[in-house]
């Protein structure tokens, strides 16, 4: 039996945000390291790459603004209980985090007991919100039309903003790569996890990976 995990709204938002973000990496990172990745710029052309980069940036910022407005209305209408559960870290997440790290170090053998979203998934959401949407979004908007900000910001500030934009892009890529591993290359997901497209996961998968959530929705109890 399949259990619903993501709404159609989440699926579409994830698709647009992820596609925009990946296109941003693909067209932005080669501009940082032309000596290593110059072939990509040669293939696409610098002006086209910059145009695609800006278009993808617009896509990411638009979807972030849309989801912010959607979330505000959703909190007003449905209450904040759902968002508190999916977004904000709880004491159980901290315990899971400590247990996971102890088990990686071989100091503890404990069965995972994740809720609907694990500490890692919540961490990824916060990383996307803070790094990709807020920091990269604001610095990206300034770099989109630097001449508009030239009267307010001195040149040294603009250069610093460019450096911040580039550095956080690298940080963001380093966060997305483990996500790539988890959804594509990990043992049970290879070649790819389909739950982000269908919005559902199998009951076995829910029982195995998110036992606490599975117990909550089915009312089952097991050791």
């Amino acid at each position: 039996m399949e259990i619903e995990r993501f709404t159609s709204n989440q699926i579409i938002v994830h698709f647009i945000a992820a596609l925009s973000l990946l296109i941003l990496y693909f067209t932005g990172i080669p501009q940082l390291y032309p000596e290593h990745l110059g072939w990509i710029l040669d293939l696409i052309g610098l002006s086209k790459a910059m145009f695609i980069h800006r278009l993808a940036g617009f896509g990411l910022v638009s979807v972030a603004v849309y989801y912010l407005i959607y979330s505000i209305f959703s909190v007003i209408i449905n209450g904040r209980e759902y968002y508190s559960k999916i977004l904000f870290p709880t004491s159980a997440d901290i315990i899971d985090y400590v247990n996971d790290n102890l088990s990686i170090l071989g100091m503890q053998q404990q069965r995972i007991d994740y809720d609907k979203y694990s500490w890692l998934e919540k961490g990824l959401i916060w990383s996307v919100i803070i790094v990709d949407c807020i920091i990269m979004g604001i610095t990206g908007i300034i770099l989109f039309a630097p001449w508009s900000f030239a009267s307010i910001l001195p040149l040294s500030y603009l250069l610093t903003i460019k450096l911040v934009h580039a550095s956080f892009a690298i940080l963001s890529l380093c966060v997305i790569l483990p996500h790539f591993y988890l959804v594509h290359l990990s043992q049970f997901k290879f070649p790819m996890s389909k739950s982000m497209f269908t919005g559902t996961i199998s009951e076995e998968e829910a029982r195995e990976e998110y036992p606490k959530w599975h117990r909550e929705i089915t009312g089952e109890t097991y050791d």
Partner: protein
Amino acid sequence: MIEKIGFPLVLFAMLAIVLVETNIMTSGIIITIGLNLALALVLTQILALLYGFSKSLKILNKTRRHPLYSPAREASVNAQLRSLKK
């Protein structure tokens, strides 16, 4: 096999990015391979996203075109799923 080499591949790509960004190692074949690998992983993800999304849309379209498809039944299944969630 890819399951076994997946983790080292991702780790290698991340390490190359960290090394080049911290200026510890800015040139050399290792860095070039690492950065290209990172971008290859990004490109794979783009393709996987497009493939997954188009396939799920195709399935949705196929389901709705099926002669036995009934919106009322779909609504009842959704209602059951919602009650299961509560």
